[in-house]
């Protein structure tokens, strides 16, 4: 097996790369956990407006420890803050924003992404307690769906696959994958490589991927800042 320990991007680097693509003024929902990091890396002059399922639009950073107001949280149940422009709304309005196609982008994690854009990220299907939250709503209705993920599982199995074997969150929904090794678009039911970390040859990237990788023009180097807080 190819050892990618030293060349793969950190979660912060993957989030940084995804943040570079978000246009100024975009309405964006960030999934719980790792995708939330995207908010930290917005480039100068490109300020997205973040939506959280529990009824807040355009909120500020986490408060200092001890300053939390537990009536002011995000979907991950983490404390957030107000900023000029914040608005509150109930859950039906929150999901009218989602289902009505008003969000430009949703960023989520994944267990598996298939080459046709199917996403599995809510249940391993092996027992345990399933928990879907707002993911199934988001993936069918935001204009673009970006997945942030390690390229392979901890055991080294591909997470980008021909067809998902785990329970689906949504069908044909993912538009772009930011993995720990590459930026890959999903177009016409194919994985199309746009960028890859410079030190991995295309053949190796292919061998770590469960479906055929395509190219459509040049594959550029995926280079991220090294020390991201």
């Amino acid at each position, binding site marked *: 097996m190819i050892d990618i320990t030293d060349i793969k991007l950190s979660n912060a680097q993957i989030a940084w790369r995804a943040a570079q693509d978000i246009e100024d003024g975009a309405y964006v929902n960030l999934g719980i956990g790792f995708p939330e990091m995207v908010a930290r890396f917005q480039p100068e002059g490109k300020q997205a407006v973040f939506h959280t399922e529990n009824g807040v639009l355009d909120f500020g950073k986490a408060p200092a420890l001890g300053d939390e107001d537990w009536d002011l949280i995000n979907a991950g149940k983490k404390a957030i803050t107000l900023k000029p422009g914040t608005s509150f709304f109930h*859950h039906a309005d929150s999901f009218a924003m989602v289902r009505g196609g008003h969000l430009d982008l949703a960023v989520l994690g994944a267990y598996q992404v298939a080459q046709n854009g199917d996403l599995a990220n809510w249940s391993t299907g092996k027992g345990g307690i399933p928990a*879907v939250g707002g993911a199934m709503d988001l993936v069918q209705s935001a204009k673009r769906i970006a997945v942030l993920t390690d390229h392979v599982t901890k055991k080294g199995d591909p997470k980008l696959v021909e067809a998902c074997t785990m329970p689906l969150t949504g069908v044909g929904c993912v538009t772009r994958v930011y993995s720990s090794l590459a930026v890959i678009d999903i177009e016409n039911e194919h994985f199309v490589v746009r960028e890859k970390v410079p030190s991995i040859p295309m053949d190796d990237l292919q061998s770590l991927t469960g479906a055929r990788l395509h190219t459509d023009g040049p594959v550029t180097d995926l280079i991220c800042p090294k020390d991201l807080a």
Partner: protein
Amino acid sequence: MDKTIQTPAEAVAAIPDGATVMIGGFGGSGAPIELIHALIDHGAKHLTVVNNNAGNGHVGLAALIEQGRVDKLICSFPRSADPSVFVDCYTAGKIALEIVPQGTLAERIRAGGAGIPAFYTPTAFGTEVAEGKPIAEFDGRSYVQERWLKADVALIKGALGDAHGNMTYRMAARNFNPLMATAATTTIAQVSNIVPLGGIDPEHVITPGIFVDHLVEVANPAQEEELNRAEAVYP
């Protein structure tokens, strides 16, 4: 007309065994902890509970589950910082779980309150959540039919309330509360302050009083996150 009631205990006294109870809140924000604890004291059992989550720690909804009062939970996300109460009950087969995508849960409740028996949503198309449900195509896209959700009782939490039941909410504590207020036969609200009629600017009313049956004032309500940091257990 005066919908105010003096204590949480009186407010929940008529909830029968076997009731379907919607409980507002998202995690701890907007969770009517005092009403839930009064329901535990009251003793109603074999409840079906509708909530976004499945409780956290050993207070509020988690305590209601821990006391064995909940036969079935309808929720979107049964995980939390400390979901051990729900996990133990579920694993032991003592509680049934219906997982509903969060937006579908909100819209089913909204539909219940609005008199719409079913609706079509793109959410969950092609997934196991849609299995067995009618599918229809509109303008070339497939949608899943979902049914309304109604309850015997809603327990909700607000900020200000008046004797007619008009209510406001505090920040993100709004979440499911105004929806659940519309979808239950009897809606019981706890608010931080009951103000005289006219004390709420009509422009600021979020839940008009027609949706609320009983209000009880709970000044300085407990917050689930703070109870859990103090490792509180109820009762």
